[in-house]
């Protein structure tokens, strides 16, 4: 008799099969990335140089991908999750299976995004490092999206919440706020924004003398944010909810 697979493996395989079972939606998910990359190339190509603004848009896009991919994935299966939990399904394995598949999807998206931009523009920093920054933003977005999905009561509410979470990423950024309004409070709030840390990696990688400890710290913070958000999603799913409405 073959060794039984871990629940997270079974769940990830099922989730992957579901994605492949709807190729139209999968294509739309993946097509966003080169489309946004191409739009960036159109805008910054005419300037003929990469700018902090481009880095910021790329980081925000990666966060958006992760968040929008994940925001419906638990709430739409809530009844199934509750049912399977009665048969011993582990909430932790369930959420981990989502992270695996969504992270893989996010990785493909950031490669497509960065690849499209690099095709048209020569960014200053090392491509691999920039990909890591975008991937970090994407998985942080995935954590954020999964938390939203775990807390939301309907798919519609989950989708509505995404812009509310992404707007502060813009509002509390050095790029959006005039320097005379950039206070300590804004600076502190900015530090809890995943886009800020991904942007840091881009800035450092484009610098003449990158501070590698800052790069490592920024990537670490992004991974920590993802871990905390995913953990919060697991915790919020722990209370037993009723399946009958």
């Amino acid at each position: 008799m073959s060794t039984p697979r871990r629940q997270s493996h079974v769940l990830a395989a099922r989730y992957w099969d579901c994605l492949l079972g709807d190729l139209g939606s999968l294509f739309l998910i993946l097509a966003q990335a080169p489309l946004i990359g191409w739009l960036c190339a159109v805008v910054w190509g005419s300037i003929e140089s990469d700018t902090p603004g481009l880095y910021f848009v790329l980081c925000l896009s990666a966060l958006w991908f992760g968040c929008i991919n994940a925001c419906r994935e638990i709430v739409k299966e809530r009844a199934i999750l509750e049912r399977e939990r009665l048969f011993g399904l582990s909430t932790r394995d369930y959420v981990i299976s989502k992270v695996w598949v969504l992270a893989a999807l996010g990785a493909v998206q950031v490669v497509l995004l960065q690849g499209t931009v690099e095709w048209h523009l020569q960014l200053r920093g090392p491509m691999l490092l920039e990909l890591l920054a975008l991937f970090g933003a994407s998985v942080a977005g995935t954590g954020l999206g999964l938390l939203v999905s775990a807390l939301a009561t309907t798919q519609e509410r989950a989708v509505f919440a995404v812009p509310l979470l992404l707007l502060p990423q813009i509002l509390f950024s050095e790029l959006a706020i005039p320097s005379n309004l950039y206070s300590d409070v804004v600076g502190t709030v900015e530090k809890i924004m995943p886009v800020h840390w991904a942007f840091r990696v881009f800035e450092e990688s484009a610098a003449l003398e990158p501070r590698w400890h800052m790069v490592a710290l920024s990537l670490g913070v992004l991974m920590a944010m993802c871990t905390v958000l995913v953990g919060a999603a697991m915790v919020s799913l722990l209370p037993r909810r009723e399946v009958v409405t």
Partner: protein
Amino acid sequence: MGSRTSLPPGPLRVENVGVSLGGTRILKMVNLTLHAGEMCALIGPSGAGKSTLIKALLGLRDPDEGSVRMGSLSLAKLGPVGYVPQDDALHRGLTVRSELAYAAELRMPGTSAEERQSRIAEVLAQVDLVDRAQIRIRRLSGGQRKRVSLALELLTGPPLLILDEPTSGLDPGLEARTMTLLSQVAGTGRIVLVATHAMESIERAEALCVLVGGHVAFFGPPRKALSYFRVDRYAELFRQLEKQSPSSWGLTASADPDQRAFLSRPGPALSSAAARTSEQGSPTSTDEALDRLKAQMVSPEAS
């Protein structure tokens, strides 16, 4: 854990169950008895307490008073009860077979791939979906999706199966076929409780429970409900319910000798076979009980 069907360890007894929510009593003194092999139709107007009763039977809401037991076991010790919700809880991008395969892997740990495949083949045949096994669920009709939901629950062979409005949205023909299928499922030795509005198919059930305002207004064989409520058709029953308060319906029903007798009726032969199997300490399964039953029919002294 084997893949074969577990028979109920005894009758389902809902005794004097009361449930309150936010200071309001939703269910009051509900009494039901159902034996293995029986299907019970649960009907009632909106707000009658059907969903609350289902929650209590699923173990999702503990009664404030009374008890729910199957044989000598509380429902908590019985394990997961089969439940088919009104809205399909399925992965629409998967094929029917994949959906069942993943569910079997998650719900039947400790079984081999061969055992699971064999069980999947059994339930597909039981719900008549063998020829649709490779079709993606989103391409199925409403009735077929409902059968997939039923197949999912049958995988683990629960002794008690509860279905919430399994015929909603189906045309009358499909509605009748679904109720027939459920009656056949009950015939394999399970207890099946169906909350339904399919009034024309109620007679396929062995028992009918009419809830109104949290009270049991009637519990007995469906045909007797017509004379009890003095109506010609089941569809007229709800109008009749409005002529008395829910509490007076509850009092009348609890004083009715026929309904009292129905509550304490002995189980049919199938549940007796199951009970004997349980007493002998051997694993209970539908197949075994049916085999015993057949043996008794061929040679009565075999029992």
